[in-house]
Every structure is written in structure tokens, then in C-alpha cells.
């Protein structure tokens, strides 16, 4: 994904000698909070990009009324804020608010051991994570790493062993290997005859985490084949080679899923929840309204039974709106699969192209197909429309917005939101197309699409929440099975393009020197990307780790509600002569209650538990207060 807009100020600091006092005149601004409470590592980029954030508007009376006129508002806010940001940056530098010991960084330190150790003889398949898929007859289907010959042999062993246990009327679930007091590796098996899946992990994932991941891989297979077809294929010939049946795209998708599970940043799988696009309640209602009106439109009424579900989803798998029949919901895994397909496989879809895709939702009905009408909601058209409207409305704000959009667009990778309509009827394409077209037209005419595009790359940041010392957090609302988190720059869940991936399948070998190279500020674009990816990887591992402090190996919470703090500190003895960067002092929090799940990572150096707890509470309060914006609560029900 391209750089988000509005980040340009980071590179061009202009010296302006304006008094700091202006800051004080705006006590309501979150900036004030941040400035008076210098944290050890202030996240500048995230702190100051608030302008692009819809909530901030709230604190200022001028914007309280008209959210729909977002663009113009944003424009003014932007110029306003840019000044302020520069000032602030300037003043902070001159005041030297940077604390004594710690370098200011928006990084979290590397907390986890690197696999690579040159001294030990390297095992045949030394990977942090490995996935195998094979048929029950022992035919390989897919392997994440490894040469074919090696993998064949290993799968032979898996097959033999599982068969041995099958003969003894049992199944192997998991193997945990350890040495002394530390668990070295976990091997988890999932037997979904005629398919057998296995995962190996040297990380701190629990057996349950790994089972979830395997289930997702299996779900993908079902998604393309359907359970019925799968059993049919294998019932005919037990040693059927599924590889001949799967397409190249399937393998690409499997690789991609594995890759994104292993090295990407995807709390979706960890939490088993959907990410939701943050937007105003009114906007969301407008979206729901648009969907509903077209489904319930008298013209469409005849074909009303045709549509089952409707979804509008923003890049990164962020759910915007759901249209669903009363009393029915879609399983999170099904939606993850769908989103994964849309944002991985179908982003090349042209503006005027529509997709009519049979897809099996394994958790909905694993033996049948539903049919999806997928249409990307590109800005191209909206820009044209906007441009034509520009003449009439003369709003420069809007044109400036579309400028940004066009800036983004040249790189074709920039993901687009998508409209998905799901039907159970094979031949209802035209009916859905009609509904879809109606929805798209409405979205454009009501400027909802612009808003989605604008918001989806922005989200909210830590600065919006009065929570001190917090680097990043994930809040999952159990009721909604959705989670939110502050924006991460360049975050893109489903679109880490495969070409890049092939190289940056960073096994830790490549990354072992990461600690030093991270400090090297100057880097080429690729380096920057790699570093960002490494950052996300660290973040993900940290989240996985801290979540294990409230939930046990089998996915059962320690108790109804658990509050856990985890702190990493330098142990005093410097290891293997590596130049030590900053001293590690990271405090994390995992909080589990029947209603929510909060995972939180603090800035390096912030270790006052009480303050962190206060911050955590305010995050929870904030998330509850803004529930309407953060989550799709009910969706459009018909």
C-alpha cells in the first residue's frame, strides 16, 4: 500500500518560531495531554496525524454538526493542524523533552529470541513455522517450506504415524517437545479425513492457536472445493492426488495464507474476530440504509429471496456494513476467507468488472456453494462523478480529496473497498447485479464511497484516546466478535503482494541483525518496507505472547476474567557482544473479561503499572463509549 496521505510533514520540518502557548489555549486537544506527559518514546507519527481522524472533530464545536461534509472539514482541519504540528514538533525539540535514557522511537524492542544460531548443526527444515497438508492416503497436497523430496519423506512419516494411531482407534492431537524447562516446539495435527493437516511451530503459540490456523487452511480448501466434492474425489480413489485438481491460484492462495499467518500481522486469526472500519454512526447507518433500500426496493422485491447477505468491506478486511436476514449471521472464518480472496486474488479487477463466484462457506454449509457477486468500489468512477460535481458544488475540499485518491491510484496495488452480495441461487446474477448497481450508485451519489476510501486508510491513532504510555493495543468486543486497533502505517493485511513475499519470507536468519539495522535511519524504500514488516512481525509475536498469559494451551481462559501484566527487562548480562540498543523495559497487558479482550503494548520504558492500568481502563471506556463507531453492531437486518 502506498504511503498514507498527510504524512508529508514528517519529512519537512519547517522551523517556525511560534510560541508554545498556543498549545495551552486548546486544552481539549489530545496533544495537550501528550505534551504535558512526555512518554519515553513518543510516537510522533501516530501522535500528530490525528488531523486526518474523524473523531478529533468532535472536540471542536465547529465540526460537531456535519460529519457528512467530512472532506471540507478535514481540509480546514488539516491546514490548521499542520501548523500546529510543526510548532509542536519544534517546541518539543527545543524543550528537549526526550527522556534521559531512551532514544525516542516509535519502535518496540525485539523481545524474542532469534532462531538462527550458527554453532548448532542446522536441522533439515529449520523454520519457525511450517504447515503441511496431505491426503489421508499420504499424498502430499501442500507444504509451506521445503524441497519436494524432503517434504515427501516427512509426509510419509506423518502418514505412517497417524495411521498407526488410527489402527489403535485414536488420533494424535499434538506433540509438545521440550528441553528442561523450556518448550522447544509444538506439532499439532488436524485430521479432517480425507485431508490431514499439520503445523509445526517454534514460537509461543498455543496448541489451540495452531489448531485454529490449521482449521483456516482446511477451510480454504473447503472454500474452493466444498466438502462434498472433496469426499467425492477421495471416495472414488483413496490415493487421489489433490494437487492435480487444485489450480495454481489455489496454491498461491495457500502460500499466501500461510505466509500471512506466519509472518504477517493479523490479529484476525489470533482473536478469531473481524476487524471493523471505524466510522461515524450516521455514516454506518447511511450505508445500512443504502443496502436495505435496494434490497427492499419494490423492483427487487420479486427477487427478494435471492439475496442472502450483503457486505461492504474496506481494504484490510475492515468490515463497513453487513446486510443479513434476521437471525442469521456469517461465521468469522467464512468472512476471513472471503476477504482474503477479495484482497488477495481479485484486486486486479477492473472498475467495470463484476465477479460472479461460487464459493463454499465451510462454517455456513460445508457441502454446498453460495454465489457471490463481488464488485470493487473503485474511486475512479467516484472521482469522475466528483469531478463533474465539482463544477456545481465548487468544493475544493472534495477535489483535494480526490487528488489524494489519484495520488494513490497510479500504483495499482492500492486496495479498493468491495461490495459483496451473496446468494444461494446460481442464476440470480442479474438480479444481484441490479441490486449491486443500485447500491453502488447510491454510495457514490451520497458520497459514502469517498468516505469509506478516506477513512479506511486513516483509522484512529493512539493520540485519540486519553491513554498514556500506550504504544498500541487491540480491543476485541466479544459480543460483536470484532476488534479494533489504532492505525498502523502501511498496514495491509491481505495485500502483501506475493512477489515481495517470496523474498521477504523472513526466516529469522535474515532478521537476526535486525536489531542494529533498525537504528540505521537511512534506508532505501525496500529497507523501509522490510523494517516495517519486521515491526509488524514483532508486534504480532508480542500480542501472541501476551494473549497466552490469559488463555491456556487449550484456548480456555484462566478464569472468567483475568488481568495479566508481562514485563520484559534487560537481564543485566549483555549477550554475545551485540551492541545494545536501548535498554529493554517493555510492559504489556492482557485483560480478559466476559465482555472484552484487551491486549496492550506500552512504550519502551513505561513501567508504572498503575498508570498503565489507568490507561487500559480509559481505552476500554473509550471503546465502549464509541462502540457505535468502532463496531458493526447489528448490521442491516431484513
Amino acid at each position: 500500500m502506498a504511503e498514507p496521505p498527510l504524512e508529508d510533514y514528517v519529512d519537512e520540518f519547517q522551523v517556525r518560531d511560534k510560541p508554545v502557548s498556543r498549545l495551552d489555549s486548546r486544552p481539549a486537544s489530545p496533544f495537550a495531554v501528550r505534551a504535558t506527559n512526555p512518554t519515553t518514546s513518543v510516537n510522533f507519527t501516530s501522535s500528530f496525524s490525528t488531523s486526518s481522524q474523524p473523531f478529533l472533530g468532535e472536540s471542536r464545536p465547529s465540526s460537531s454538526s456535519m460529519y457528512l461534509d467530512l472532506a471540507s472539514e478535514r481540509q480546514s482541519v488539516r491546514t490548521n493542524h499542520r501548523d500546529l504540528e510543526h510548532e509542536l514538533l519544534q517546541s518539543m525539540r527545543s524543550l528537549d523533552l526526550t527522556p534521559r535514557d531512551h532514544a525516542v522511537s516509535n519502535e518496540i524492542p525485539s523481545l524474542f529470541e532469534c532462531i538462527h544460531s550458527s554453532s548448532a548443526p542446522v536441522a533439515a527444515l529449520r523454520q519457525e513455522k511450517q504447515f503441511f497438508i496431505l491426503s489421508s492416503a499420504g499424498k502430499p497436497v501442500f507444504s509451506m517450506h521445503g524441497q519436494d523430496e524432503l517434504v515427501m519423506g516427512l509426509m510419509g512419516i506423518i502418514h505412517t504415524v497417524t495411521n498407526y494411531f488410527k489402527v489403535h482407534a485414536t488420533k494424535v492431537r499434538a506433540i509438545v517437545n521440550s528441553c528442561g524447562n523450556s518448550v522447544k516446539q509444538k506439532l499439532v495435527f488436524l485430521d479432517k479425513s480425507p485431508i490431514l493437516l499439520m503445523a509445526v511451530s517454534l514460537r509461543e503459540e498455543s496448541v489451540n492457536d495452531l489448531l485454529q490456523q490449521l482449521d483456516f487452511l482446511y477451510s480454504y480448501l473447503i472454500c474452493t472445493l466444498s466438502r462434498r466434492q472433496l469426499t467425492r474425489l477421495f471416495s472414488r480413489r483413496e490415493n487421489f492426488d489433490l494437487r492435480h485438481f487444485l489450480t495454481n491460484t489455489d496454491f498461491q492462495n495457500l502460500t499466501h495464507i500461510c505466509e500471512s499467518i506466519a509472518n504477517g500481522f493479523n490479529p484476525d486469526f489470533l482473536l478469531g474476530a473481524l476487524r471493523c472500519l471505524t466510522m461515524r454512526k450516521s455514516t454506518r447507518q447511511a450505508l445500512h440504509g443504502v443496502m436495505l433500500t435496494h434490497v427492499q426496493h419494490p423492483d427487487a422485491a420479486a427477487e427478494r429471496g435471492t439475496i442472502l447477505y450483503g457486505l461492504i468491506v474496506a481494504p484490510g478486511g475492515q468490515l463497513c456494513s453487513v446486510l443479513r436476514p434476521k437471525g442469521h449471521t456469517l461465521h468469522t472464518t467464512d468472512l476471513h476467507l472471503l476477504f482474503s480472496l477479495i484482497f488477495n486474488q481479485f484486486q486486479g479487477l477492473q472498475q467495470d468488472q463484476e465477479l460472479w463466484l461460487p464459493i463454499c462457506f465451510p462454517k455456513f454449509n460445508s457441502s454446498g456453494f453460495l454465489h457471490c457477486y463481488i464488485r470493487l468500489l473503485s474511486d475512479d468512477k467516484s472521482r469522475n462523478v466528483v469531478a463533474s460535481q465539482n463544477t456545481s458544488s465548487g468544493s475544493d475540499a472534495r477535489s483535494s480529496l480526490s487528488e489524494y485518491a489519484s495520488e494513490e491510484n497510479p500504483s495499482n496495488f492500492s486496495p479498493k473497498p468491495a461490495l459483496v452480495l451473496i446468494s444461494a441461487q446460481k442464476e440470480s446474477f442479474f438480479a444481484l447485479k441490479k441490486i449491486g448497481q443500485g447500491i453502488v450508485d447510491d454510495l457514490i451519489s451520497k458520497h459514502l464511497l469517498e468516505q469509506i476510501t478516506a477513512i479506511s486508510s486513516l483509522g484512529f491513532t493512539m493520540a485519540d484516546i486519553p491513554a498514556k504510555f500506550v504504544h498500541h493495543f487491540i480491543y476485541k468486543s466479544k459480543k460483536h466478535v470484532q476488534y479494533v486497533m489504532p492505525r498502523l502505517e502501511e498496514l495491509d493485511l491481505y495485500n502483501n503482494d506475493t512477489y515481495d513475499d517470496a523474498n521477504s519470507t523472513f526466516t529469522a536468519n535474515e532478521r537476526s541483525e535486525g536489531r542494529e539495522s533498525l537504528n540505521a535511519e537511512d534506508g532505501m524504500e525496500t529497507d523501509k518496507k522490510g523494517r516495517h514488516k519486521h515491526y509488524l512481525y514483532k508486534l504480532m509475536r508480542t500480542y501472541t505472547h501476551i494473549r497466552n498469559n490469559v488463555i491456556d494451551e487449550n484456548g480456555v481462559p484462566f478464569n472468567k476474567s483475568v488481568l495479566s501484566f508481562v514485563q520484559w527487562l534487560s537481564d543485566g548480562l549483555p549477550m554475545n557482544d551485540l551492541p545494545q540498543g536501548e535498554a529493554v523495559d517493555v510492559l504489556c497487558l492482557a485483560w480478559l473479561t466476559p465482555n472484552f479482550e484487551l491486549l496492550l503494548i506500552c512504550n519502551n520504558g513505561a513501567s508504572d503499572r498503575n498508570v498503565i492500568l489507568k490507561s487500559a481502563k480509559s481505552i476500554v471506556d473509550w471503546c465502549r463509549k464509541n462502540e457505535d463507531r468502532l463496531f458493526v453492531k447489528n448490521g442491516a437486518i431484513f
Partner: protein
Amino acid sequence: MLDFITVFNPSYITKEEDAEKQLLLFHTFQEVEEGRNLSLNEKIAQLGVIQALWQFSGTFAESQDMSESVIELEDRVLCTIVVENGFFVTLGIAAAELDIPANYFAANLRHCYDFSVLQFGLWSGFTSRKQLTDRLNEFLVPFWTELNLMPHHLWYKGFMNCWPHCYKVADIEDNAKTDASSSSSSSWEADLKQQVLLDDSSFLGLQDLLIYHLPKATSGKSYKLYGLVRSFTPNFDSLPQFSNWIEHLDNVYTRLSSHVLAGNVQFKEAAEEEPTVLANNSEDLSTTQSIMDQSRKLYNNFTYPLSFAHDAVHEVGNMTGISSSMSLLSDLMPKIPSWKIWPNSDDKKAKAARSEFLISPLSASFLPESYKVKKMHLSYDGVLQSFNCLFWFYNEALVVLVYKENFGKIWDHEYLHDTHFKLSQCISKLYTSHLNATHNGVPDSFCYAIISKNTRRLRSSFPLNTAQENSTKTSTLELVVSGLDEFLAIGTNRKTSVATLHPLQASANSEDESGKQPWGLSLMGGIFKKGPADDASKKYGETFLDDIPEEKLRFLHLDINKFINTLNTSKRAPDLKEEKLIKLNNGVLCFLSETSKEIVVLVENWFDKKPSKSKRSPRDGNNLVQYMGTEVFKWWQKNKRTQT
């Protein structure tokens, strides 16, 4: 509950056809179904699978990194440890209904191996495969059969099972400090060193002296003062194993006796038939009845820890015509002058303290060798050698004298009497200075466990899950002293064998009663009688957890076990330390810290926390521990100070 235990070593295979050669032991605990026994092929297939999975795991990480593997099946768990570079020990657990964590089994598996090495040396040291198999059969099978009969022993150590390579030390340092200043005379340690270790008569012969404090608290839970008090020779590599062995015996057999130490006892499932059935079948009712009465009496008496009453035996002896047993019994008494110090001897005050050799050449001459000297394979300075060990007790203290094998003087009774005298002097000093400190009555509001990674010492005040078995369960088990049975149980009263003990924790008053018997085999048996003074002080638990119900304690241990598991799975960088504070809504507040040197576990109840947070100094270092209660924090700081 247990399925099978097997030991195999794949390196014993030389040829393709030799697959059965790797098999050293395969014992199945399941009732053998009619006609269906596991064939050799099936056994070997089982080994093959275990080995295959082991090798398979090795392709993803260096297999040298691994020493333990837990294979979770749907209805079973296979727990494997690899010892001595190639011996696989696998325990199959059919634990569908029992949710005992796998690491409890793994810990016991490791203990089992450790103990076997103590008994007969390294497995790889055996030249003959057959011989090793015999030894394994002798040792591993009874070990696990007993645990299978009494699964609660698996629970006993609770989360301490996370560290099978560590050993418990008695945490009596506090008292030591206060007393060192007050007592003008030399300390007990110095005395011991001077009088026993460095004594001319045994110098160079006596390798080491190990002092254990093994209290049997009436509350059944006090664990803080339990464990090793002192060992004198540095570089005693087998110390953890040895200490764990002592603790294991003490726990499983509820008390250490000569029989236990000599390895002559075993739990067996008692015969189910009622005595009355026997009576009905008998022709001469009246005689049988009287014998029955006597044997019941005898039976009751034997519920005391082998302290069967002299007169009871006498009567039975008359009835059953085994009068010869009387002389046997008197022979069992070591003939040493000091035995008069026991209660009901002619001394005016019955002395509370009792002391005697448990295993020594002083024991009756007809008893097997193992009662006279215990041969143990111990490792000093990395060299594993066989040593002669003698066991001596004083109240609740156990002293192990480790002699070099060629030291002949231990057969000299004069020398032993002399040593006995010196030991009782020193240990009574230890008692007065350290172990007598009466508890101030206020239980600690927290529990701690500290594991030192270097010294492998484990200090802990967590109460353990002592088996408070209900009588219905225990009655089906009896402790059988294998040797004595043949001597004393003849013919009619075979069922109520004299040498049968009940594992039931005898209540204090019954022990008192047994103490009032003029004399008896109590010498040999449940020696660790509690002094009355101790009883009074133990009314108060030492920690807040001492009073919680058994089941809750077990769940707490399970919870903490899970917490520790998060430390074990943590893949933090080696130069970091990890601390965590876990708060459950049921009141458990647990602090865990792992550094390269030690692991600390602290638990308190946050419901009890006094609201004194305000006055705490804001930042005393970056520790999560400061958010525990004030008492904990004080302890923590003191602990830090003593370390530095």
C-alpha cells in the same frame, strides 16, 4: 489410569532383524484381556512410532535440544523422556477422566530414572542387556504400579513438578540468623563438622553428611521447613536426585522406616474377601473365631506404622504357635544402650526426642543386607561411584551418612554407637537453635517459591497436596513389607500379615498410644513421631494457604502450573528477563519472574490485600512485584538483600 511403561534403546539394534533387541522393558498396567496379550511385534511397533515422532520432530529443530516429548492423543498421552543419550523411557497414560497435567507425569518419569540411577548406577553402565532389564523390572515397574494405585501422589508436588531437577531445601535461614548471634557456643554445623566429619576415626571414610528435616505436620501441609537442611561436601552432583528420592519415599510411604529405605515395601491391593467368609468355611468355628479376634486385634495394631504391640504378637504367637516369632522380634531390636531413652523406659521424664539408626549394621543380623547398609550410586565431582549410606534419625530430622565403599569401620558397632551419640548431640543442638522456633501465630499472607537455576535449590512455602485419602479408598491398599511377611505371617493369619502397614496417616493420638507400648518394632518403623510441642505450634498455618481445602489447593496448583507454563513456552531473547503479574477474579494474584539465575513464584489473595497502597514509595525499581501486598514486597526486598 496408566497404560504402559517401556524402556528402549534403538542403538542396541545391530541388524535389521534385531528390532526386539532395543526393547528393554515393556510393562502394561492394563488388565490383560483374556488371551490377548500384546505381541512382541505390537510392542516394537509402538516403540517405532515413538521413535519416528522423535526423529520427525528433529527435522524442525535440533533433536539434541530436546529431552522430553509429550504426545497428546485423543484418549491417551504418551510421555517420553530420553536419558543417557539414547534410552527412551515412555509412559503411556490413559488419562481420560483424570486431568493430571502431563508435566506431572514427566516429572515423575524423570524422578524414576534418577532414583534408579541412585540404586544401580547409569543404565549405559550395564554390560548385559538382560541384567539391565532385570533391574528395570525390579525398580520401574513397582514405582509406577504404586503411583498407579495411588494417583494422588502425582498431585502431591503440584506445580513443583515443573522442576524435577530441583530439590527442596528447608528454608530455615531466618531462625539461623537470630540464633547465631544469641548462642555463644559453637553452631551445630561446626560441631558436626568437627566431631563427625573430621573425626579421626572416620576421616576420609565419611564422604558426606546430609541432614534433612522431614516434618509431618499434623495439618499435613507445612512445607516451608521441609527438605534438605545441610550437606557438607561441595560438588555433590547427585544431591538433587538423592533429596528427591528421600522426599518421594517419605511422601509415598507416609513415613520413612527401615523397610522403606531398604526398598522392601510395596503397596499391594488388599484382598477383598471378608474375614467372616473364612470363618464360615472353617470347620472348627470356635478356634477360628478366637484366632480371628486376635488377628483383628493384630490387624488394628498394625495400622500403626509397623509399631505392632509386643503383647499382641505374643498372644497371636501363642494361639498360632509361632512362639519363635518372639525371639525374632527381640532380635530386631538393635542392642545398643541408648534405646532406653524412649518413652516408658525408666527415665523419669519421657523424652520427646527419639533417635536411632534406620539403616545400619546395628540392625538384626538375620535381616537382609539392605537393612544394614544402603548402597547408593552417587556422583561427586562428576564421578559416579558406589557409596555405603547409613540412615539415622532424630525426631523429624534424617541424617544420611555417606561412606566410601572401602571404609570398613562402619561394621564396627562401637564406632556406630559413638557416631550415634555425637549425632544426637549435634542434631539436638540444631533443634534447639533452629527448628524449635515457635511460629508467631500469624500466617504469612503469601506463598513463595524460589528456584535457583545454578544450585537447583528450591525454596518454597507453598503447601502441597498431601493425600488426605478417605478410609474407604485406603483400605483396599496395604503396605507390604516383603521380607518380614515370610518371617511373621504364617498359616492362618496370612491375610492380616504382621508386616502389613496401612498407608493411612495415623492420627496423632494413636501414635501416642503406640509410643506408650513398652517397646516394639516401632524402632524399625514409623520413627518420625511428632513431639507434642510441635503440635501446638502447628495449629496456626504458616501461610494463608495452609488452611484452604484440599481440592482448592489442587486447583490452585493447577492454575500456577499453567502460569509457569507461560514462562516455559516464552521465547524471549536470552538477555531478557520476564516478569508477570496475573490476577484472576477468584482472588489469586500471582507474580512470576524468570531471570537467567532464578525463577520466583509468589501468590497472594488480592481480596485480603490491605489498602495500604498509598504510602508505598512510588518507584522502587522496575518491578511488578511492588504491586503485590506490602508483606510480599518486604519479603522480596529482604530476599534480594540476602542474595547480594
